């Protein structure tokens, strides 16, 4: 079976600390993978290897759409269509919505002159079709700081989708959000699925991951301790297993 992203035998050592031990991890086409694990489990190390910030130890291999990727760099990852959505770092607060949507990829002619009207129009269209902003109070010219946490998360996700990201990595998208805001953020994750794209959803809250993920991968102390397809396990069962892992470091 061919995967969108396949990582084989990935290890990462920082000095004396081995943060990942022989990890095998894959993401299928149009699949939302929940990556669960406690602090220090190795989630962020794994993500940083995917996005090219860290190189894995020799011996590991990364495949994208079945093709081996020799060296994953930040530029390479972007070129392949891997986008990370960080909660705090995604948006420029004091700028308008349209400037945020087109951040770093402004529509412009070959002299660098901006197509401001074009960007406003596209933003208005995205707001209606993908973000569900129906309120008249928010326009493409509204500044982002006036929006709620869930809405901002949505802006970042819609931006990634608009620029044809194939794989969107969400780094704790629900952290610090209220219940209704979490609901909104999760709806945007469903939007990724509907757009036929893939996502890795990193969180340590099983109640947020379970409803939107197709498959849940449990990472603990640098190792993959188990994977569960949502249609094969109930939430209660999964919680019981996770508690077992947390206490013993083993799944069975």
């Amino acid at each position, binding site marked *: 079976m061919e995967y969108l992203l396949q990582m084989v035998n990935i290890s990462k050592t920082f000095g004396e600390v081995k943060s990942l031990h022989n990890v095998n991890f894959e993401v299928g086409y149009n699949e939302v993978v929940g990556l669960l694990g406690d602090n220090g489990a190795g989630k962020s190390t794994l993500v940083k290897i995917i996005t090219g910030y860290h190189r894995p130890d020799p011996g590991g291999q990364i495949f994208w759409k079945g093709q081996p990727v020799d060296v994953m760099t930040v530029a390479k990852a*972007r070129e392949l269509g891997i986008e*990370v959505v*960080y909660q705090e*770092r*995604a*948006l*420029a*607060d*004091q*700028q308008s919505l349209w*400037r945020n949507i*087109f*951040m*770093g*990829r*402004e529509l*412009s002619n070959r002299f*660098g*002159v*901006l197509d*401001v009207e074009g960007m406003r129009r596209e933003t208005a269209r995205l707001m209606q079709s993908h973000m569900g902003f129906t309120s*008249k109070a928010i*326009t493409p*010219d509204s500044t982002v*700081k006036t929006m709620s946490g869930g809405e901002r998360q949505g802006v970042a996700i819609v931006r990634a989708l608009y620029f044809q990201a194939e794989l969107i990595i969400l780094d704790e998208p629900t952290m610090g959000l209220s219940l209704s805001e979490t609901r909104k953020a999760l709806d945007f994750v469903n939007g990724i699925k509907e757009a036929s794209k893939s996502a890795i959803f990193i969180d340590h809250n099983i109640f947020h991951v379970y409803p939107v993920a197709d498959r849940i991968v449990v990472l603990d102390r640098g190792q993959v301790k188990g994977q569960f397809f949502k249609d094969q396990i109930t939430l209660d069962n999964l919680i019981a297993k996770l508690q077992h892992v947390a206490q013993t470091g083993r799944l069975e």
Partner: protein
Amino acid sequence: MNRVGEIEKFSAEIPSETARGKLSRFVRRYAMQIGIVLVGVLVWLLFLIGSPKTFLSFPIYAAYMSTTPFFALMALPLTLVIITGEIDLSFPSIMAFGMTVYALVLVSTGSHILAFIACMAAGLVAGLINGVIVVRIGIPSLVATIGTQFFWRGVVLVITGGNGTGLTSAIGGVLHTGLVGRLFGLIPAQMIWTIIVAILVWFFLNRHRFGAHVYLSGDNVESARLMGVNVPRVKTLVFAIMGVAAAFAGVVVSLEVLYFWPTLGEGYLLSTLSSVFLGGTSVFGGTGTVFGTLVASFIIGAINAGIVAAGLTGFWTQLIYGLIIVMSVSLQTVLSRRLR
């Protein structure tokens, strides 16, 4: 600036829902600009009431248009530097450094045009050096540009030995007429240049990819970088532009008085900085407008004239500019916190 509240109250009386929404959105979006225009009108009215005879005749405005450009020409590009979240305190010395190069080339070649070109190049180099120290070496711009401020002033004093250079030979030449001549015998050419520079800076800030990256670099460096904005290049460029602008302003000032003093630039630090901050540019970076800076420059120019007209000594200017800087940055911060 609490005037904005009044305008919103006023807009509530307009019956049409959409018109009201549009107006209040307009007011909120341009709150800073509306505020600064109101402050400007207020200052002007005060002067008009205080001395109607002076302020209803043309000469006072000719004087404004002649002297305000000296620092407005630098406040406009300084707005870019401050929007990126940096600061430049070295521009007064770069004015003098540029003119030192000007004087050297003038003495050896006799050509004002060549001297001008060399001066612009010197400004560019000085600006680039600021950029490199801040961006590549990673020194906070506040410290770096205090350092280069002293360094360039020192270079000027060492080279000139503290002696000035007469520039009367420029009279009648293209450069003198083009930079500080009088259009129709009335409007100082430097005023036209200020407007040209304002339009250029506005265009690049608001309608060009470069300006978009200026805002993003100052607002959230991390996200700008993650989204592929070349933050080091943007910041280096704004410092370079600032250097060229400072050298240009140095030429304008020197040609206007037909003499290059090695102390050139001293006294422009406060008026330039206060123009930018009074104009609504955030000291934390990320926001600011060219329009605000331009209007604020003329308010600062007017206050300068007002201090003299009110019979206060020049000693008062520092006190008042210092007050303006502290008050405008504090007010902005408090207001933006409340709007949040």
